[in-house]
């Protein structure tokens, strides 16, 4: 457990000190969202209607942005080989890495969401729902994303491939995440079901992600 926490701390430190990954992700997130009013027009009625969807899509894209650092940096400088020699199972290491990705990339994204909800006229009720869905749903983005990051770890410029591999797997999270907020805003009362499915997706990816990613890492290191 101590080693696990050390790894999370190490990942956090290196992601913030090597160019402040979290800050870059947040800037990307805020800018992406603020592009939409230029594209669809400034009408508050339209913005508040599509706002939750925009925020969720931007969150998916932000999650992808920092995925390629998850393993490829450790591969380049050789620390992945050393990590593989430690007593900690590779699966646990993947959990630590995915958790750090969630904390350092998606954590700031969630923190910046209230501001964007304000700009997009989503309203307090919608904002609470939005934050709740993101807290429950975004772990799936990190743990599913770990698979794509591990599959492409050894490929030079593999980061370009990651969106292609992982976006189809993100679709369910997007549907239930944006769906729950839409249900709250429309007052149709279907949000509990959506939230339960979001939780199920996160738990499921917590199980399948580390196993598949560790298998891919083992192959890559052979």
């Amino acid at each position, binding site marked *: 457990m101590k080693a696990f926490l050390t790894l999370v701390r190490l990942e956090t430190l290196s992601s913030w000190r090597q160019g402040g990954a979290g800050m870059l992700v947040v800037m990307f997130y805020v800018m992406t969202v603020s592009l939409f009013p230029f594209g669809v027009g400034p009408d508050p009625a339209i913005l508040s209607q599509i706002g939750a969807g925009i925020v969720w899509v931007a969150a998916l894209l932000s999650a992808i942005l920092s995925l390629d650092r998850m393993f490829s940096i450790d591969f380049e400088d050789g620390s992945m080989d050393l990590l593989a020699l430690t007593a900690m199972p590779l699966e646990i290491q993947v959990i630590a890495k995915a958790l750090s990705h969630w904390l350092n990339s998606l954590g700031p994204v969630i923190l910046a969401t209230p501001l964007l909800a304000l700009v997009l006229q989503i309203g307090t009720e919608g904002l609470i729902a939005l934050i709740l869905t993101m807290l429950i749903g975004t772990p799936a983005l990190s743990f599913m994303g770990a698979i794509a990051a591990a599959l492409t770890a050894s490929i030079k410029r593999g980061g370009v491939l990651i969106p292609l*591999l992982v976006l*189809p797997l993100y679709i369910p999270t997007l549907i239930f995440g944006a*769906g729950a907020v839409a249900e709250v805003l429309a007052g149709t009362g279907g949000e509990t079901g959506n939230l339960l*499915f979001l939780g199920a997706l996160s738990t499921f990816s917590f199980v399948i992600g580390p196993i598949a990613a560790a298998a891919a890492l083992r192959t890559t290191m*052979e």
Partner: protein
Amino acid sequence: MHKFANPVRFNRLANTLLPWTFALTVTLFAAGLYYALYASPPDYQQGDSVRIMYVHVPASSLSLAIYVFMAAASAAFIIWKHPLAVLAAKAAAPIGMVFCGLALATGSIWGKPMWGTWWQWDARLTSMLVLFFLYLGYLALWQVMEDSNKAAKISSILALVGVVNIPIIKFSVEWWNTLHQPSSLIREGGSAIDPSMMTPLLLMLAAYGLYFVTVLLWRMKAEMAEKRLELALREKASWS
């Protein structure tokens, strides 16, 4: 199983099978198309445009089946390290993708007269589109990996992750939106399709299936020939 891991034995088997599957494919396509385009009645509602069904339905059901086949072959490769299995998966993927694209294209052409629009964000269309993306990702991964041994294992893992996610994606997309008519081929209390339309549909389904088998065997043979060529060239280079 491992008996057929021997390339020579597989080649012999493929060479015996191929003339038969090829001839059957051609015959079934001829018969199926005759029934589909000529000898079956037009639909009482849809008129002659119902005939698109005979190219659309087999393509879409086979593209899904081929992905499952690919995943099963990938699993066989990971578990038993069976080299032909991953070759089969690799050879099947482009065929599946073409069927998937064909299903999307014919669906779109069918949608125009029926729903009045080329594209609808309806559940079954959308999950087909996602399946197309999954095929695309799998093939792209093969393309960019330089070491073909690693590419085999890495892409097998991706195929398995994909097949586990297909039901989830399909279910969530269905939850999201539904307009497409539900499957009428397999349904409780027997099929909802009249026998006059069932015959061409089943014939076309069989024709597509055999087409897949024929092309799969061809592609696997080509893959093996390519590997042999690579080895021979490397050997030649090391001699000189």
